[in-house]
């Protein structure tokens, strides 16, 4: 997708002007938050599970080289082919080469954020392969020509009414009713034949299991298995941070992932894949290709962004983010939206093109609180601001304002004079009404909010005069 993070504020203006977007976001985030809260409350061992998950990821990252080698060896032994890609471009090249070698005409795809990250759609288009998205939400946005707006529910920005309209226009045999069940049936009729007849299937993986060489997918729709079983070739693109040591370690995360993501105890379909079709098997792909993608993850290992590699892509941080809930995922203008995206986008695509992302956050901490692997998202966003500051990136106004303020705040006596003067000025503007409705240079505040009229004299002035 085309990244538009550099025009974040324009994106925000546009998003806020769109009333149906807010309706869609409210309907969805409210439900997801309530469901998550309920299922976490019922999970008495949650705190320990979360702490254990964090420790497992940290341990795996500390020994990542070991585990990657172990995974590779086991995956090859299971009959898979393993590739390494440092960049999205390298990953795309592997995909197009496989498609060309197979003479593939069509590919069915199971949603994965890594696929979006490396631009898998582009790779398939380059190889002249028709791409069929099988996840219902991805199917919706493919028909609409939209990029995803959420990492778990890519069509979160669409209302039911909008989906009904879209299906009526684009499906061969659309349902006449517009309730959600009929819409889902319409998509089922549309997609079924495509599952069965594709040449290639492409998926991501939620986990890689080092000591068995397995990879794991979780879906509620069952589309991962339906998609990847009939075609002759299955391509998996996966980030290197998805590693866990063993099957039993994966179980810890499976308990957390769907609770955090959608508020259920487990997803309906959890599948551990091990290699291609075996002797005597009646179905399954003949070829299995696993592409391990870096894309700056190895850079993140060596700085303060390291904890971000614990992320299991559950989306809880965005579901609970006030900024995300106000404007939705598209405003971020990048593959990964929300709090985790505001950390990942600068890390993967550079801090210059995504200046606003780490700043457009109130640092309220809700994201960290709900994160199932306890990623200190607010601290990392703050550190990214510090990195921006070191590079001299804040704009003139901000820098100048900060400098004047710092010069005063570090000189208490001078600071007293300045606050006393501003007390007089603000009181003048309030003209005794108790509130101030416009303040020069502070339109950002007074455009939508009043400012209180200060008391006569600052605290320090009054205290000095003996008030107690």
């Amino acid at each position, binding site marked *: 997708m085309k990244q538009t993070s550099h025009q974040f504020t324009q994106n925000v203006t546009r998003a806020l002007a769109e009333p149906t977007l807010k309706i869609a976001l409210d309907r969805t985030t409210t439900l997801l938050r309530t469901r998550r809260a309920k299922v976490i409350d019922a999970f008495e*061992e949650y705190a*320990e599970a979360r702490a254990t998950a964090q420790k*497992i990821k940290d341990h795996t990252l500390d020994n990542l*080289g070991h585990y990657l080698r172990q995974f590779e060896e086991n995956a090859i032994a299971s009959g898979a082919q393993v590739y390494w890609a440092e960049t999205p471009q390298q990953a795309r090249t592997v995909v197009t080469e496989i498609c060309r070698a197979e003479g593939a005409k069509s590919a069915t795809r199971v949603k994965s954020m890594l696929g979006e990250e490396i631009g898998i759609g582009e790779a398939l288009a380059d190889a002249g392969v028709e791409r069929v998205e099988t996840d219902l939400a991805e199917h919706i946005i493919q028909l609409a020509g939209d990029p995803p707006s959420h990492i778990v529910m890519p069509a979160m920005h669409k*209302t039911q009414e909008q989906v009904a309209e879209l299906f009526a226009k684009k499906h061969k045999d659309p349902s006449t009713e517009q309730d959600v069940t009929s819409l889902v049936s319409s998509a089922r009729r549309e997609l079924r034949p495509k599952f069965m007849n594709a040449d290639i299937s492409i998926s991501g993986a939620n986990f890689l299991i080092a000591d068995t060489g397995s990879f794991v997918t979780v879906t509620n729709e069952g*589309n991962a*298995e339906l998609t990847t079983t009939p075609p002759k070739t299955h391509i998996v693109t996966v980030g290197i941070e998805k590693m866990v040591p063993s099957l039993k370690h994966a179980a810890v995360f499976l308990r957390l992932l769907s609770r955090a993501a959608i508020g259920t105890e487990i997803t309906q379909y959890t*599948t551990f894949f091990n290699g291609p079709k075996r002797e005597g*098997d009646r*179905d399954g792909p003949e070829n299995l290709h696993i592409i391990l993608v870096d894309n700056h993850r190895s850079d993140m290992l060596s700085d303060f962004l390291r904890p971000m590699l614990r992320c299991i892509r559950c989306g809880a941080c965005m579901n609970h983010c006030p900024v995300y809930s106000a404007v939705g995922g598209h405003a971020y203008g990048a593959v990964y939206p929300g709090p985790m995206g505001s950390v990942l986008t600068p890390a993967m695509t550079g801090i210059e093109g995504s200046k606003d992302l780490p700043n457009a956050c109130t640092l309220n901490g809700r994201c960290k609180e709900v994160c199932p692997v306890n990623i200190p998202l607010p601290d990392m966003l703050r550190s990214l601001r510090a990195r921006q500051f070191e590079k001299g990136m804040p704009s003139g106004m901000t820098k100048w304002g900060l400098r004047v303020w710092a010069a005063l705040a570090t000189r208490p006596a001078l600071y007293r004079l300045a606050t006393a003067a501003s007390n007089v000025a603000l009181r003048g503007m309030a003209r005794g009404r108790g509130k101030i409705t416009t303040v020069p240079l502070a339109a950002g505040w007074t455009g939508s909010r009043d400012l209180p009229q200060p008391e006569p004299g600052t605290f320090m002035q009054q205290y000095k005069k003996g008030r107690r």
Partner: protein
Amino acid sequence: MSRDALLAKIDHANAGRGDMDVKAAADALIAEPDRFRVTFNDQPLYDRFVEKATSETVTATVETLDALADVPAAVAAYMAARDLGNRIALQPRESLTALDWSAFETAATAQMNEVLALTFADAAIAETGSLVFRTGPDAPVLLNFLPLHHLAVVRRSAILPHMEDVFDHFGTSAADQPRSLNIITGTSGTADIEAKNVRGAHGPRFMHIYCLSG
């Protein structure tokens, strides 16, 4: 950048961090699983399994049968009650094919719009109400995914407490793994439109479980 260069970069970033005995360190983290998973000590496995499998979120139905031989009659009753005809896709597994299916038209693979399939689950998980299927020559994948009605047989003795127990039961090494291990919890669902839960997204809309008491 080649594989080796990337691994070297990762090793460099991790200098001084790795464990001497990696496996021991990893195992220590999960040595006491009951501290971080749902426990249900006083509830019998079967009760827990049925409670979860038939819960609002999993939406399966469970029927108890005395013996495997009772399955065909039970399937016939299920189909008759729903007017589903008499064609079934039957997993080509001996324990099932050996039964008397003379009243049915059976097929070993599922068609694109298969109405009903019957498969044998290798295990079940009480914690979540899930069924476990291991693929093999007599257990293809699609039978569990294509039909609108997924009927599954599981032995009561195969109900294990947790997912970890399934791994222990079948083996945790690479060599022990089937091509595909499907853990299925209810039916195909989606919440992709306004987070509203709907069943029968791509796969089965109904799951009916025959639990064999023997």
